[in-house]
């Protein structure tokens, strides 16, 4: 393959990526878009085996096959053996953290590529190349370690609350200053040691950067780190003289930035508040005081009776529903109510689950008809005419504190206004607050009935009680 053909293949792959992102933006074309992207990536990967990229220092350009071919194929095989089963087998509930992990390893790969090319270029690297290398190493390492922390938060291997320690912001500022200082050191002094030091403090900075982010905001950070990784890929494309990498990386960086903003908007958060909110937030009473207050808890039979005489019921599914694997049972309940002539809709909050759109994926898995899923803007005006709102394993997305108490971490987030419904039923495992760690006043409302227990077990009991009526 000659260099012109190689470049054209790269261009074609770049176009494929644009079409992929375009396709992914519309429900009808989304799946095809993803396949086009996969096709472009495959073609681009095959093309590097057929063309020898001249070494950056211009020293040699050898003939095919490329060096270390056996090793390269072996490493790809290892990657396939790890990546494909992980992607195939992951429970849909755990998918967000897998995406975070995939993003992290991508950032790690970009950092490694930059380090190797730097070692390889040695003294022949131009200043511009060194600057781009430094950028790739810093941002790639931040993306890698940051994504590992988001993974641990979502997997609940560590607390989902913001982690803040005294003087935390000074430690972060000092680390950032160290990153910048060492970056300058690498650019001026050149050498392997400074670069490795830079990699290590960048990894540390990634950890510190994500630790203060609260659980509910983690998806926004994943999206931001995703955009970061894109930019590192673009920067390494400059060092490797690969137009394809520049195009692909920039596309992901740009679209990822927009997507991060859209997600933050859907959650009513500013990006700045997400990243630094834990430092500026006033300590608030709601999280600290867990005084005993009376709640009204009911039995599955009480719930069934309430539902039996309702005309309109709105189901608000949350992550707890997915954890309990209760999607199928909730559909059974909905079908039963429909057969009794009760009007049923699902109110889907944009960020229900752990990521925007996550709940739609989970309910789709249970074959819930698409026309029963109502988006927040559609369903909110109807709560006034709703007899019963059933909140299953959700909490933060219906918490009126988001509208009423400024200063609470989710203040400003649009919510499903179930508080306007005539009756509210909460299916909960315990009185534990939601993912964001905020107390929900609605639980103590006199028109609220709580049904404690595993969502799936409770729903099964409600279904049989309702059948018996």
């Amino acid at each position: 393959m000659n260099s012109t053909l190689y470049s054209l293949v790269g261009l074609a792959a770049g176009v494929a990526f644009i079409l992929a992102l375009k396709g992914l933006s519309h429900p009808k074309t989304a799946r095809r878009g993803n396949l086009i992207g996969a096709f472009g990536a495959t073609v681009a990967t095959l093309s590097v085996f057929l063309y020898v990229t001249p070494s950056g220092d211009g020293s040699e350009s050898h003939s095919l096959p490329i060096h270390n071919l056996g090793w390269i194929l072996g490493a790809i095989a290892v990657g396939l053996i790890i990546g494909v089963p992980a992607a195939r087998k992951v429970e849909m509930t755990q998918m967000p953290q897998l995406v975070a992990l995939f993003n992290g390893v991508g950032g790690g790969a970009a950092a490694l590529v930059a380090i190797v090319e730097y070692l390889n270029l040695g003294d022949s690297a131009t200043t511009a190349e060194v600057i781009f290398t430094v950028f790739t190493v810093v941002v790639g390492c931040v993306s890698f370690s940051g994504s590992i922390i988001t993974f641990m938060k979502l997997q609940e291997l560590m607390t989902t609350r913001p982690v803040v320690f005294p003087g935390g912001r000074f430690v972060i500022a000092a680390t950032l200053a160290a990153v910048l200082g060492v970056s300058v050191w690498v650019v001026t002094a050149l050498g392997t040691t400074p670069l490795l030091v830079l990699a290590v403090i960048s990894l540390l900075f990634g950890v510190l950067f994500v630790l203060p982010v609260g659980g509910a905001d983690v998806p926004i950070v994943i999206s931001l780190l995703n955009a970061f990784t894109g930019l590192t890929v673009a920067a390494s494309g400059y060092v490797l003289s690969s137009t394809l990498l520049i195009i692909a990386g920039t596309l992901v960086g740009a679209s990822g930035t927009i997507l991060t903003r859209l997600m933050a908007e859907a959650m009513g958060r500013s990006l700045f508040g997400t990243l630094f909110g834990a430092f500026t937030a006033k300590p608030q009473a709601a999280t600290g005081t867990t005084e005993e207050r009376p709640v009204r808890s009911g039995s599955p039979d009480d719930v069934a009776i309430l539902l039996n005489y309702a005309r309109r019921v709105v189901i608000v599914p949350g992550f707890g529903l997915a954890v309990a694997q209760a999607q199928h049972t909730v559909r059974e309940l909905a079908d039963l109510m429909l057969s009794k002539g009760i009007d049923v809709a699902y109110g889907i909050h944009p960020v229900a689950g752990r990521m925007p759109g996550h709940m739609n994926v989970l309910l789709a898995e249970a074959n819930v008809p698409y026309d029963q899923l109502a988006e927040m803007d559609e369903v909110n005006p109807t709560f006034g005419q709703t007899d019963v709102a059933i909140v299953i394993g959700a909490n933060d997305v219906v918490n009126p504190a988001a509208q009423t108490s400024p200063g609470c971490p989710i203040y400003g987030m649009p919510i499903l206004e179930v508080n306007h419904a005539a009756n509210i039923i909460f299916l909960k495992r315990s009185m534990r607050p939601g993912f964001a760690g905020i107390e929900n006043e609605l639980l103590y409302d006199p028109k609220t009935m709580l049904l404690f227990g595993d969502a799936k077990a409770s729903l099964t009991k409600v279904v049989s009680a309702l059948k018996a009526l």
Partner: protein
Amino acid sequence: MDAIAVISIFTLAVFVGFEVVSKVSSTLHTPLMSGANAIHGVILVGAIIVADHSKNNLELGLSLAAIVLATINMVGGFVVTDRMLEMFKPKKGDQK
């Protein structure tokens, strides 16, 4: 690489990236992020190039590690995105 060419490519790609995703419903945020995530797995191309350039075992070892990570990112990313989107499909079949 020619600086002007690089800046041109970069600038145009930024605008295209902004444009293509500016209107997307929240339902698709997760698959779109996952798909974009898979696309940057194309760093695999870069990892293979540096593996070819490697002059010693350290360089080769690091680039092989990069290849493993990049492959996981790229292939895993596309597979998991496809799985998410697969679930949107049967519903449409029902409606039509």
